[in-house]
C-alpha cells in the first residue's frame, strides 16, 4: 500500500536529483474501455529528469489517453488494465486520492488544448492564478498575488496587473493559453504535460507559445511531455519522439534520428504530410495566372460590424476551377470577408459579383432565391457543429435540395444524396447515420457533400481542415483539389496552416488588419514573400527542425 509517506520520501529524492534515474517510467501500459476494447497497447518509455519527450499521432492513436493515465484522469469507463507508471520511486497506479492531491497540479501538471474551458469565466484570471498559488504553496493573500503577477510577467504579459483583473472571455486564445501555462507552472512542477497545447492557436501565436514553453522548461528545470498531432510542433521542442498509431508505438527515438531516417512508412507519411505541396494534384502549378474570366469577383469592398470596419478595400477574383488561399492571423478579417460575400454581413461599399450578377445588397425574396440556387456554398470549420445532431447525414444533405426543388419524391432525393456522398468518397450507407457516429474526417466530407449536392459554382471554405488530423487533412485537401480540377468549382480556402494552403491553392491572398497586403501565385508568393507581414507569417510556421533537408519543411514553401 502506498501512503503519503511515499510522497514525503519522494520530496527527499527530488533534492538528491540523480540524473541517471528516470523521473517518469511507463512500462507495458494497457488502457481498456469498459467493453474490453484495448485503446492503448504496451506503451512504454523512460523519461530522464529534464528530458523532453514528444508523443505524436493522429486522433485516436492513444497519445492523450497515455497522458491522462499518467495523471490518473482517464475519462469514465476507461481504465488501466495492466502496466506500471512510476514517478520517481512512486507507483502512480497505486496512489490513493489524498496522495494524488499532493501530487497532481503540484509535482505533475498539464496544459490542454482548449484553454478557455479550463478557466472560470466569472472570476478574473489573476485571482484564479493567485488562488491556485495559495492552495499549492500555502502562501498568504498578498504573497500569492505578488507571485501571480510575477508569473504573468514571466509568461509574457507586459502589463501583468491589467491581465490579472481580466476575465477569461476577454483574452484571446493565445493569452488564455499563457495564463493556463502560468497556472500549470505556479507550483514549480517537475513534470509538465502539454497536450495539444498550441493546436488551437494561429501560427504566429503558436510559435510564441512554443518558445515560452521551451524557455520555462529550461529555466525551471521541468521535464516535458508534449503531445501533438503535428510532428513539426513536437520537433521544435523535444529531443525524443514517440510516434503512436491505433494505441501502439510505431516508432521511438531521438527526434533528429526519426526525422532523418524514419523506419516506418507511417512516420514517413507524417513527415511528408508537412511538405503538403507534394500532393499529387495531377497538374503543374500555374506560373502565370491564366486570364480566365472571374467567376466570383470582389471589388473595392468595405465591410464590418456597425460602425467598425473590419475589412477594407478588398479586391479579389476567383476563376472557375481556381483555388484562392486566404491567409492571415486571427482577427485579420478572413472570416468577416467570407461572411460578407455570403451576405451575412452587409457591405458598406464595393461590389460582389457571381457569374456577372451582383449578389451584394440582396434582401428578402431575391436573397432567398439566390441562396436556394446553391451557386455559392459555405463549409464551416467544425463539421460536428454545422450538422444538426438529430438529423441523419442523408437528411442534412437533402435539406438544401428540398428547399430548392420543393417537394421531391424519396427516390430522387436518395439518388442525389448517394451521388453527393460518392463524390466525396464516402460510403452511401452513411446516409442513415447520425453525425456523432461518424469520424471527424467523414463528417467534414459529409459537410462538403451537403454543399456539393446543390452543384455549386463557388465554395467558400473556412478552415475546413484545421480540426482534422494529418491523414484526414490530406484526404480532404486532395478532394478539394479534385473538385476544382474536375468539376471546375472555384474555391476560397481559409487556413492558418500554411502547409495546407501551399498544398492546394493556385493563388494566395494575404490578409493583414483587414486589408490584402499581398496576392499572387501560391508557389511564387510563399517562396518569395515581398510584404514583411507575409515573411513574419512564414517564419512563424512550425517546421520539422533537424530533418534531412531533402524531404521536409524547407521545401514546404519553395515549390518546384
Amino acid at each position: 500500500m502506498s501512503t503519503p509517506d511515499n510522497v514525503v520520501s519522494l520530496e527527499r529524492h527530488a533534492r538528491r536529483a540523480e540524473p541517471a534515474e528516470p523521473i517518469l517510467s511507463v512500462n507495458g501500459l494497457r488502457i481498456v474501455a469498459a467493453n474490453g476494447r484495448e485503446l492503448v497497447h504496451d506503451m512504454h518509455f523512460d523519461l530522464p529528469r529534464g528530458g523532453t519527450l514528444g508523443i505524436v499521432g493522429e486522433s485516436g492513436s492513444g497519445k492523450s489517453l497515455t497522458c491522462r493515465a499518467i495523471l490518473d484522469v482517464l475519462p469514465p469507463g476507461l481504465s488501466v488494465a495492466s502496466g506500471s507508471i512510476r514517478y520517481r520511486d512512486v507507483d502512480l497506479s497505486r496512489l490513493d486520492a489524498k496522495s494524488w492531491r499532493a501530487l497532481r497540479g503540484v509535482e505533475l501538471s498539464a496544459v490542454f488544448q482548449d484553454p478557455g474551458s479550463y478557466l472560470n469565466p466569472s472570476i478574473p484570471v489573476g485571482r484564479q492564478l493567485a488562488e491556485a498559488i495559495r492552495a499549492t504553496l500555502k502562501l498568504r493573500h498578498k504573497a500569492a498575488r505578488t507571485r501571480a503577477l510575477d508569473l504573468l510577467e514571466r509568461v509574457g504579459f507586459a502589463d501583468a496587473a491589467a491581465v490579472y483583473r481580466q476575465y477569461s472571455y476577454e483574452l484571446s486564445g493565445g493569452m488564455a493559453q499563457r495564463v493556463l501555462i502560468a497556472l500549470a507552472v505556479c507550483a514549480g512542477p517537475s513534470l509538465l504535460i502539454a497536450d495539444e497545447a498550441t493546436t488551437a492557436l494561429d501560427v504566429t501565436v503558436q510559435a510564441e507559445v512554443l518558445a515560452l514553453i521551451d524557455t520555462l522548461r529550461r529555466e525551471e528545470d521541468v521535464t516535458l511531455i508534449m503531445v501533438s498531432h503535428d510532428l513539426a510542433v513536437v520537433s521544435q521542442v523535444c529531443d525524443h519522439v514517440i510516434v503512436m498509431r491505433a494505441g501502439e508505438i510505431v516508432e521511438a527515438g531521438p527526434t533528429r534520428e526519426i526525422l532523418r531516417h524514419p523506419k516506418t512508412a507511417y512516420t514517413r507519411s507524417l513527415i511528408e504530410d508537412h511538405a503538403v505541396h507534394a500532393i499529387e494534384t495531377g497538374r503543374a502549378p500555374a506560373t502565370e495566372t491564366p486570364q480566365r474570366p472571374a467567376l466570383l469577383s470582389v471589388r473595392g469592398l468595405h465591410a464590418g460590424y456597425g460602425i467598425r470596419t473590419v475589412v477594407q478595400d478588398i479586391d479579389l477574383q476567383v476563376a472557375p476551377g481556381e483555388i484562392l488561399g486566404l491567409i492571415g492571423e486571427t482577427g485579420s478579417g478572413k472570416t468577416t470577408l467570407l461572411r460578407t460575400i455570403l451576405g451575412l454581413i452587409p457591405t458598406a461599399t464595393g461590389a460582389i459579383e457571381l457569374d456577372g450578377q451582383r449578389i451584394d445588397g440582396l434582401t428578402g425574396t431575391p436573397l432567398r432565391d439566390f441562396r436556394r440556387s446553391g451557386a455559392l456554398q459555405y463549409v464551416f470549420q467544425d463539421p460536428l457543429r454545422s450538422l444538426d445532431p438529430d438529423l441523419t447525414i442523408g437528411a442534412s444533405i437533402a435539406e438544401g435540395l428540398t428547399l430548392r426543388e420543393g417537394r421531391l419524391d424519396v427516390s430522387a432525393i436518395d439518388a442525389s444524396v448517394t451521388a453527393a456522398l460518392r463524390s466525396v468518397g464516402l460510403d452511401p450507407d452513411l446516409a442513415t447515420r447520425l453525425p456523432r457516429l461518424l469520424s471527424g474526417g467523414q463528417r467534414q466530407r459529409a459537410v462538403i457533400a451537403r454543399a456539393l449536392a446543390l452543384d455549386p459554382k463557388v465554395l467558400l471554405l473556412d478552415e475546413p481542415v484545421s480540426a482534422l488530423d494529418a491523414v484526414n487533412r490530406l484526404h480532404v485537401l486532395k478532394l478539394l483539389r479534385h473538385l476544382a480540377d474536375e468539376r471546375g468549382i472555384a474555391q476560397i480556402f481559409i487556413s492558418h496552416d500554411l502547409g495546407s494552403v501551399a498544398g492546394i491553392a493556385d493563388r494566395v491572398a494575404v490578409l493583414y488588419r483587414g486589408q490584402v497586403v499581398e496576392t499572387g501565385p501560391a508557389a511564387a508568393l510563399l517562396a518569395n514573400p515581398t510584404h514583411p507581414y507575409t515573411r513574419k507569417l512564414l517564419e512563424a510556421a512550425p517546421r520539422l527542425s533537424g530533418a534531412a533537408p531533402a524531404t521536409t519543411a524547407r521545401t514546404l514553401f519553395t515549390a518546384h
Partner: protein
Amino acid sequence: MTRTLLRYPSARAAIVILAVVALLAAFGPWLAPHDPLAQDASALLQGPSAAYWLGTDALGRDVFSRLLAGSTVSVLASLLSVSIGIVLGVVPGLLSVFLGKRFEWVGLRLIDALMMLPFLVFAIAMTAMLGNGLAQAMFAVGILITPAFFRVSRAAALSVANAEYIEAARLMGASTAAIIRRHVVSKVLPAVAVSAASMTGACLSIVASLTFLGIGVVPPDPTWGGLLATDLSTLYDRPFGPIAPALLIVATVWALNALADAMRDAGTQEQRA
C-alpha cells in the same frame, strides 16, 4: 428515449399509475357502481360497506362512485390548462428567439408581468369575469403557467439559435418557419415534455385547491378536489374521508413528477451517449 426511460424503476411505476389514472378518466363514470349524484337519505355519512365501498357523504351519495366520476373532469381540466400553457408559452417562446429584438422585448415583459400576478387573485378575477365554471378557471390557470413554458422553450431555443447548422440552413435559403420546424422543435421538445409532465401534476393540485376553495366548481358535479373539500367539512363524522381523494391526487402528482424527472435524466444520459 422511451427505452432509456423504461430503465428507471420510478418511471415504470409512474407509467403504471398514470395508466390507471387514464383508465379512470376514460371509463370512470361508467365504472361507478352508483349514480354519483343520487342521494340516499337513509344512509348519510356512512363508513365503508359492501354497498358503499368508501362510504357515503353528508347527502348520502356514494363516495367511491363520485371519485370515479370525478376523474374525467379533474384530469381533463389539468390537461386543458397545460395545453393552453403550451400553446401560449412555447410558440411565443420560440418566436422570441427568432423574430428579432422588438418582439423579444415585448414578449419578455409580458411574461414578466404574468409571473408577477398573484395566482389566486387572478383565478378569482378571471372566473368573476368569465363566469364561475371549471373551464374558465382552468383557462386562467393555463395563462398563469404560460411563463414556465415560455422560459423553458426560449432557453432551449436560445441554446441552438446560433448553432452553425442553423446558419447553414439559412445560407441554403431556409425560412425562419422552416428552420424552427426542422432544427429547433426537436431540440426544444424534450424540455417542453418534461415541463408538461410536471405542470400537469401541478395543475391537478391546482384544480383540487381551486375546487376546494369553491372556484370553478359547479356543485353537484364531483371532482377530486371537490370531494376533498366536502370530506374535510365532515371530518368529525368521517375522519377517514379525505384519505381516498387525497391519495389519488398525491399518487397522480407524484407519478407525473417522477416521470418528468426520469425524462430529464434519460434525456441528459442520451446526450452523453
